[in-house]
């Protein structure tokens, strides 16, 4: 399809020109003023909105909307994985102020456990596979939950005085420990996990046919349920209030009577659980469970969190959506340079909005 090539190149050029225009205006005009004008922020927002909207419109024009919808539906498993991983990363960043490089390893640990449980069950009994998969998923989540809890209680809590880069190093040490421990516990071969279902659902919209694998439906439903429960808890329970208080300032929160230890421990545990669900779906959708299988997802999760801003819970999910969209459309333009295109777009957006798309500027004491 040669039309795609030219059109997407045009969009990219339009976007680049818009951003360049903004940077020139910013450096030549706004920075000269002593007090930064208010409409500067609005201009960025308008430019980014225009950029992303033109991208959407042009993509719809090139692909036609049923095809775009089809691409989106086929990528929903990746989207669910990315959203779950991102939420885990953000939850830990909020309470422990560090980027958790062990997020992927904690998740893989749970997925290995789940896979082992499923395979044992299927070898022993001859029942419904779906039931066993659910049992496996639940046990995997439980193991990762406990792992997160142990990591926080045993290590992170004792290292609270360490700087955030130091904490990063602790999580990196954890990556190495888990990387060594997983082959010892579960054997060194990658294990295959059966999918929930390999069937596809076909349904018609008007004259167009849309195909969606059942596996994707499972992923969407489970992710939605988990997210709704999590966000409800964050909004309405005492734990959620505690998380929000700890995120804004741990010391003040603890002075106000919030038990920040419990809050942090629960955040690590829940992040582990979310990661385990993500790794489970990653493994059961064709890939095998491997030690390093979640590293790529984890990097994308960090990028999504930066794109959507760490300061809110909803922002990173939008960031994950955008990254998923970019990376599902980019291969049609150029398969080999997919990562460069996606990360380049993110870099441009973050340069224009250093705090992420939905970031709020917090006043800092000098």
């Amino acid at each position, binding site marked *: 399809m040669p039309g795609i090539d030219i059109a997407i190149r045009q969009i990219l050029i339009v976007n680049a020109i818009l951003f360049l225009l903004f940077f020139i205006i910013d450096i030549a005009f706004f920075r000269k003023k002593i007090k930064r004008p208010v409409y500067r922020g609005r201009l960025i927002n308008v430019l980014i909105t225009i950029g992303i909207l033109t991208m959407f419109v042009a993509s719809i024009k090139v692909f036609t909307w049923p095809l775009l919808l089809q691409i989106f539906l086929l990528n929903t498993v990746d989207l669910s994985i990315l959203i779950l991983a991102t939420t885990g990363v953000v939850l830990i960043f909020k309470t422990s102020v560090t980027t958790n490089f062990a997020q992927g390893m904690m998740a893989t640990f749970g997925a290995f456990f789940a896979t082992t449980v499923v395979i044992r069950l299927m070898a022993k009994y001859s029942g419904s596979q779906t039931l066993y998969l659910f049992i496996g998923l639940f046990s995997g989540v439980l193991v990762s939950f406990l792992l997160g809890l142990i990591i926080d209680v045993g290590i992170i809590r004792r290292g609270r005085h360490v700087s955030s880069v*130091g904490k990063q190093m602790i999580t*990196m040490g954890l990556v190495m420990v888990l990387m060594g421990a997983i082959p010892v516990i579960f054997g060194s071969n990658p294990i295959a996990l059966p999918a929930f279902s390999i069937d596809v659902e076909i349904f018609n919209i008007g004259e167009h046919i849309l195909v969606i694998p059942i596996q994707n439906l499972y992923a969407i439903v489970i992710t939605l349920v988990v997210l709704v429960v999590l966000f409800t808890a964050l909004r309405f329970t005492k734990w959620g209030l505690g998380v929000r208080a700890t995120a804004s300032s741990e010391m003040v929160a603890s002075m106000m009577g919030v038990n920040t230890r419990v809050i942090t421990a629960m955040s690590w545990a829940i992040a582990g659980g979310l990661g385990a669900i993500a790794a489970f779906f990653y493994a059961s959708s064709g890939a095998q469970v491997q030690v390093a299988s979640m590293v790529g997802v984890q990097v994308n999760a960090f990028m999504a969190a930066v794109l959507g801003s760490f300061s809110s819970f909803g922002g990173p999910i939008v960031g994950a959506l955008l990254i998923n969209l970019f990376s599902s459309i980019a291969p049609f333009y150029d398969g080999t340079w997919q990562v460069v295109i996606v990360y380049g777009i993110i870099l441009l957006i973050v340069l224009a909005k250093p705090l992420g798309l939905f970031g709020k500027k917090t006043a800092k004491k000098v």
Partner: protein
Amino acid sequence: MDRVMRGINRFLREFKAIVKHPYFGYVFFGMMFLILLLLRNQGMVTISVINTAVIVMIYTVISLGFSLLLGFGGLASLGTAGFVGFGSFLMGYLHGVKDYSLGVTLLLSLCVALAIGLIVGFISLRIEGMYLAIITLGLGEILRQFFISYDIFTGGFSGRSFREFTIFGINFVSGDGRYFNMVYIIVVIMFVLAMIATINIIKSPTGRALLAMKNSDSAAQSMGISLIKYRLLAFILSTVFALLGGMLYIMHTKYSYAPQWNLSFSLEILAAVIVGGAQSIFGIAIGVFLIFGLKISVLNYIPFFQENPALIVIFNGALIILVVMFYPGGLIRLLQTLKYIVVKRFGQLKQKWRRYRYGEDD
């Protein structure tokens, strides 16, 4: 007799002054490594020791550049692997394939380092803290993808191998002992030069400005320190060190493979700097040895670890966690504590001896 004594005293005084000079330690270490090479050529030291020494020296060069960013500039960057890989491929392509001379290669690499440093530096002006770390991580991924896809330059998935180099008109071909010795000597020289350059940067106004910037941007700016200038400088210096390290790397291993320059390499460099002590040059060398050298030089020869190779990774990880938790300032703090204890004990003993010799004072 008196004149002789006076001469000896003067000599001792001057010797003390030389020993106290900061360069002495670095040159001394370089000499020790050269003696190691001599011992190797006499067959008294195993090849693994020499390999460890080379790896430690090369990675120390990279880590020193990184410590200028993190320990002094306070800027966390996770794109180191991409820069190191860039250096190795530049050497492999320009000198190995295109047959440019070593000087031209170095000059071109310097230009590349300048360009990359400027780009990342300008990014760092807008983005700060963890966000900067993650964005540079993205940059590293972009570079890695670039290495994998642009196979004229890097050899793609088959990697870029490096067989011979010419220095001062003399050709060195891999496979014989001369090549290995020459590379070793170059690495030692670069290692010593990098250490001397680092201490000079740290002790100069530039280093002070970087340190001020790390502690507080606003305070530094109000003291007249240009944020743009010093951030760009920090990134350029760090990139130059990283590219240099990459060039030494491909000279030593004779091979560079695009997918190897991934996130975990950047994290290992970061870990080496943090574990050793971000603001101490010898601390960084210790950290590099702990992260990269310990496995290939010591642990591989302990029977317990030979039976369970997985435990090596666990041991390394646990070591990082323990050091960061209990010595947040790095392992160099541990050494300083030990030194303090020894000096204190020695002072006590000295006082005891004086009391015994001259009696109690009133």
